[in-house]
Structure formats: structure tokens, C-alpha cells
């Protein structure tokens, strides 16, 4: 059949390209939904971990530590293979969204917590001294400042999340990685081109995000130095 990267193998791949596109679509959809879930969970548990209620902080701690310290693969296998024994059966797609979302939610919660605690105490005091409630202070004063700070680490989380959706391949989830793998193993045996193309597609998804994160970080740094220079000049 020629070498692993023979022309014939490439030709077969491009003939079947719709398979890969479908996989890419599933991956994208899982990634977007899981990212949304991770953001929602991350903000909720991030807020919990900065709350003055011990019980909320404890709940958040348990969630974060549990999901950060166990492999995503075990979590997804557990849901796919073990939960059916107690009657919980879900579609692979849903399992992907839930597991990847909940797993990355733990990381997002840490990002949100770090962002909130990086806001100086004086901001809280100014808000409270004006009569803003805890929720209002969060809404108008603390969270808007937190957003700029947490965007770069959130972008990094999004990149990791996109790559981690490939665990769906392990439970026949129909995502890009799974399509590539099954296409290659089902008779074509063109693993080389399949993985190269698949890798390139993941790269195309992730690289712009990484670029944006770096640019945003530079913008923040640049803005800070410009503002400090202006403050000195005005002084």
C-alpha cells in the first residue's frame, strides 16, 4: 500500500473530507457548549470561594480540588461506563459537554477567584462606603475590573478545553479526533495523513486564540505603562 504518507492515502482522505468536517463541527459544538458551562460554573464557584460564608467557600474548594486532581479521562469513563449501572444513561455528546465543562469549570473558578482577590480592598471599601450592597458592589465595581484581568487566563483555558474535547474519541463521541481515528482504522489504515490533518485543524482553532491572548496581555501592559506615564507627567 506504499508508505504511511503515500499520495494514495492523501487522496482517500480528501475524498472523505466531509467526515472530517462533520467531526470538526461536533468538536466545535461540544467546545462552545462546554465553554459556556465552564464559564457559568466558574463564575458561580469563583464567587463562592471569595464569599464571607465558610460553607460556600468549602463547597467551592471541594469542587475545585476534586476536578483539578483527577484525570478528565477517568471522569468521562466513569460517566460513560459506570453510571449506566445505576440507570443514568446519556448521549456521548452530552457526556462530552458535561464532563469537559465541569472539569474546566474548576479551572475557571480558580481564575475568577484569583481575579476577584486581585482587586484592592480599597475598591470594596469605596463601594460599601457609598452604600452599595455586596451584589451591587460586585456588579458595578469589582467584576468589571476583574473581567480585563481574567480574559487572558480564560483564553488559555478555552484553548485547553478545545484540545481536551478530544477525550470524546475514547467514548466514540463523533468528534473530530474520533472521526479521524475511526476513518483511519476502518480499512484505510491511513493513520499518518489522518492525524496530521486533524492536528492541523485543532491548531487552526487554538492558534488564533493563543495569539489573541498574547495581544490582549500586551495591550493591558501597554495601557498600564501609558497611564502611569501620563500620571507622572500630570503630577
Amino acid at each position, binding site marked *: 500500500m506504499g508508505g504511511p504518507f503515500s499520495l494514495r492515502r492523501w487522496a482517500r482522505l480528501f475524498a472523505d473530507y466531509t467526515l472530517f468536517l462533520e467531526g470538526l463541527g461536533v468538536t466545535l459544538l461540544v467546545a462552545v457548549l462546554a465553554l459556556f458551562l465552564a464559564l457559568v460554573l466558574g463564575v458561580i464557584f469563583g464567587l463562592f470561594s471569595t464569599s464571607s460564608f465558610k460553607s460556600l467557600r468549602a463547597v467551592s474548594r471541594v469542587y475545585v480540588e476534586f476536578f483539578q486532581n483527577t484525570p478528565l479521562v477517568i471522569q468521562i469513563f466513569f460517566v460513560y461506563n459506570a453510571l449506566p449501572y445505576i440507570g443514568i444513561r446519556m448521549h456521548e455528546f452530552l457526556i462530552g459537554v458535561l464532563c469537559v465543562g465541569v472539569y474546566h469549570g474548576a479551572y475557571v473558578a480558580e481564575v475568577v477567584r484569583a481575579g476577584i482577590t486581585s482587586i484592592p480592598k480599597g475598591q470594596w471599601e*469605596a463601594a460599601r*462606603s*457609598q*452604600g*452599595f450592597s455586596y451584589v451591587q458592589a460586585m456588579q458595578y465595581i469589582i467584576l468589571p475590573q476583574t473581567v480585563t484581568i481574567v480574559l487572558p487566563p480564560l483564553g488559555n483555558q478555552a484553548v485547553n478545553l478545545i484540545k481536551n474535547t478530544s477525550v470524546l474519541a475514547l467514548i466514540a463521541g463523533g468528534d473530530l479526533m474520533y472521526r479521524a481515528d475511526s476513518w483511519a482504522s476502518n480499512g484505510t489504515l491511513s493513520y499518518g495523513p489522518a492525524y496530521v490533518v486533524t492536528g492541523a485543524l485543532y491548531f487552526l482553532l487554538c492558534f488564533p486564540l493563543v495569539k489573541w491572548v498574547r495581544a490582549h496581555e500586551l495591550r493591558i501592559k501597554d495601557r498600564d505603562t501609558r497611564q502611569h506615564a501620563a500620571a507622572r507627567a500630570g503630577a
Partner: protein
Amino acid sequence: MIRLNGVFKQFGNLEVLKDISLHVREGEKITIIGPSGSGKSTLIRCINALEMPTSGEVFLNGEPLLASNRTGMVRMYCAMVFQQFNLYPHMTAMQNITLAPVKLQKKSKTEAEELAWHYLDVVGLRDKANAYPSTLSGGQQQRIAIARALATRQKILLFDEPTSALDPEMVQEVLDVMIRLSKESITMIVVTHEMGFARQVADRVIFLDNGVLVEEAPPQDFFANPKNERTRAFLSKILH
């Protein structure tokens, strides 16, 4: 307007305020002086519920200030100016000033902005309305912070060492604004090391030492013949 009855405050085992009783009439100007760590900040922070007393009572306008009503009480009566300005860095000067009037006092945006222009004039910074705090000098930031405090038109205005974080050449511009304010009917309590200011505007000077209210008197008496030994020692140290 403000009444403290036997206020104690502890942080862990540290007793910071010891049996403070104080009555401030509406419109009165009070300055609080005392050595570092004597509890001056803690005292005024008990008036706007940034700290809650360990025991004792605080009344604003005759109403008790409690953990359960603190947000509403502060919203109704108090504004504060901090040593470190604490402007909201993600908002322009104008937005800093109008946030509370719009969100808490339900004023319309135009109404709040009109008010803001007025107070920007009071602090002499009309041309900085659209500037972000980080582009302003310390003195300018503090004047915006004063405009922000004024714009809610509270009866009680608290200042915690408003000029201590400023470069020397900017102290006077902030003091000038405060001296002008002292002509108004607002109740002002000012923690300060500026004895000239205390002499000029205070109705009463309060000396706090080690958490105890040691002496209070009108400035002419207070500075000319302090009664307490500790007051004399403190004054001789700072007035040379």
C-alpha cells in the same frame, strides 16, 4: 447627627477602641488627631459601618446603626474620602461621580451629570470629567474623590487622612477644597495630621491615644492650653 455610646472595638485580642462616647451635632466640623495606630481610622470606620463595634452603639440621625441596616443607613447618611482615593479605575471621573446617584438614588443620568458638573466645578476639575483616574495626579484624584462623595449629598462626610498620600505640593489644593466645604452645612469628621487645617476649620478637635478619647476642645483651647498630659506630649512632638 452622630452619637457614639461606649463604643469598644477589638481585632482579635487587640483592643483598638476603648469606651468611646461622642456626640456630633448636625453641621459640626470635627478633626481627629492622634498618634499612628491610636484607632482614628477605626473610629470613623465605625461611623459608616466599614467596621462594626464589638460593643456599644452608634446612632446616625437618631437611628441605631446595626449589621442588619448598615447598607441602607450608609446609603442614606454617609460619604467617605479615603487616604488612597479609591476611585473606580475602570470609570471616568464623571462615571465615578454619577454611579451612586444613578444606581442608588435613582436619579436620571442627566440629573446626575448636572450634579456632577456642579461638584466638578466645586473641586475645580471641570476639564477632567472624561479622564480616567490613572491619568490624573494624586491631588486631582483626591479632588475627584471629594466630588464623588459630595454628589450623593449626604449629611455626613468622613475624611480619613485625605492628604497623607499626596506629594507635598498637592496637599494645599485638596485642603483648599475642604476649607471651602467647611463653610457649608455638612457634618464633617476629618482625621488629619494637618494642624493648620484643624485650627482653621474645626469646631472641635479630638485627641485619640491608644484607643482612648483623651481630650476634646475647640481648636483655640485645644492648641493653646491642652489639659491632658498625653495631649501636651503629642502636641509638643508635632508642633516642635
